[in-house]
C-alpha cells in the first residue's frame, strides 16, 4: 500500500517542498501532506522509521521563483516536551535534490530549516524558519502562527481551529503576508483553508496520516 501510494504521489508531484505541520509520525507511520499558498505548492510523502525521524519525497513548485524543486527531506524531532495538557516540539529539517528554473536549467539544490510549535487542546503557536539554496537563488523565509480552538472535541470528532499565519519573505514584493485560516481536523485528515490578504490568494493545505 505505501509503495503504491508513493508511486502515485510521485506521479502527481512533477511540481513540489516544505509542508510544515506534523513532519514526523509514529514509528512505522506514513503521512502525505500538501501545501498550496501564494509562494509555492508542495507535496511531501514521508515515512517515520522511528517516532523522532522521518524521510520523505518532496516536490515543490515555487511560484515566486518560477522554479521546481524535487528531492528528499529528512526531518529530525530534536526535542519534544510532553506535558499533561500540552505538547511542544522542535524539528530540524534538511532537504537535498534538484531545482529546475524554467529559464536556468537544473541545479543542485537544498534547504535547511527549524520548526518549533506548542499546543494545547485550545491554543496553538508555531514558528518556522527556512534557508534555501536553489543554485540560482538563495533565500530565507519565516512563518509564525497562532491558533485558537473555539471548542474542545474528543477523538474522532471534528476539531476546528481559527488561526492567523504571518510570513516574511524578504525577496517578495510584499515581504510580510498575513493569512487568516481555518483548520479542520478529524481522525487521519487535517485540512486548512485560508486567504492571504496582501496577495488576494487562497491557501489550501491538507495532511493525511496512514
Amino acid at each position, binding site marked *: 500500500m505505501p509503495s503504491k501510494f508513493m508511486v502515485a504521489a510521485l506521479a502527481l508531484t512533477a511540481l513540489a517542498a516544505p509542508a510544515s505541520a*506534523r513532519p*514526523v*509520525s*509514529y*514509528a*512505522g*507511520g506514513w503521512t502525505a501532506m500538501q501545501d498550496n499558498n501564494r509562494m509555492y505548492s508542495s507535496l511531501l510523502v514521508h515515512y517515520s522509521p*522511528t*517516532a*523522532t525521524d522521518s524521510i520523505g519525497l518532496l516536490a515543490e513548485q515555487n511560484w515566486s521563483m518560477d522554479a521546481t524543486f524535487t528531492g528528499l527531506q529528512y526531518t529530525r*524531532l530534536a526535542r*519534544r*516536551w*510532553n*506535558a*499533561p*495538557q*500540552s*505538547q511542544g516540539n522542535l524539528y530540524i529539517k534538511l532537504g537535498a535534490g534538484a531545482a529546475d528554473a524554467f529559464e536556468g536549467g537544473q541545479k543542485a539544490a537544498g534547504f535547511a530549516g527549524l520548526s518549533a510549535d506548542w*499546543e*494545547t*487542546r485550545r491554543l496553538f503557536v508555531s514558528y518556522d524558519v527556512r534557508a534555501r539554496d536553489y543554485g540560482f537563488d538563495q533565500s530565507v523565509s519565516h512563518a509564525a502562527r497562532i491558533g485558537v480552538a473555539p471548542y*474542545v472535541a*474528543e*477523538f*474522532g470528532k471534528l*476539531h476546528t481551529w481559527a488561526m492567523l499565519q504571518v510570513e516574511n519573505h524578504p525577496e517578495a514584493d510584499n515581504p510580510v503576508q498575513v493569512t487568516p485560516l481555518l483548520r479542520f*481536523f*478529524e*481522525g*487521519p485528515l*487535517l485540512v486548512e483553508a485560508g486567504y492571504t490578504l496582501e496577495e488576494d490568494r487562497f491557501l489550501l493545505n491538507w495532511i493525511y*496520516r496512514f
Partner: protein
Amino acid sequence: MKTLKILALAAALSLAAAPALAAPEVPAASAQAKGEFVTAHVNGLVCDFCAQALQKVFKKEAAVKGIHVDLGKGEVHISMNPGQTLDDATIEKLIRNSGYALTGIDREVAE
C-alpha cells in the same frame, strides 16, 4: 447390585460437591476469561493524530483486543484479550514509539 447403588450415590454426591469445591477458583478463571483492562496515563495527548498514533501502534499487538484514547483525561484505555497481557515495560515502549510519555499504569479485570 448393592455395590452399584453405592457407586451411583457416591458419583451423584461427588458431582453435587464439585461446584462447591471449585468455587474458590471461579474468580480467577472468570478474570482470565474476561481479560484485563489497562489504563495508561500519558502526557502530550493534544490532538487526533496523537490518538491515532497510539491506536495504530497498540493494535499491532496480539494481546490487545481494543484501545480507546481519552484526550481530555490524557488516558489510554487498553482491553486485553483473555489470557493475554502486556507488561509495563512493553506498554511504556509502545507509548514512546507513538511519540508520547507514560506517567502511570492502572490494571483491573474487565467488567
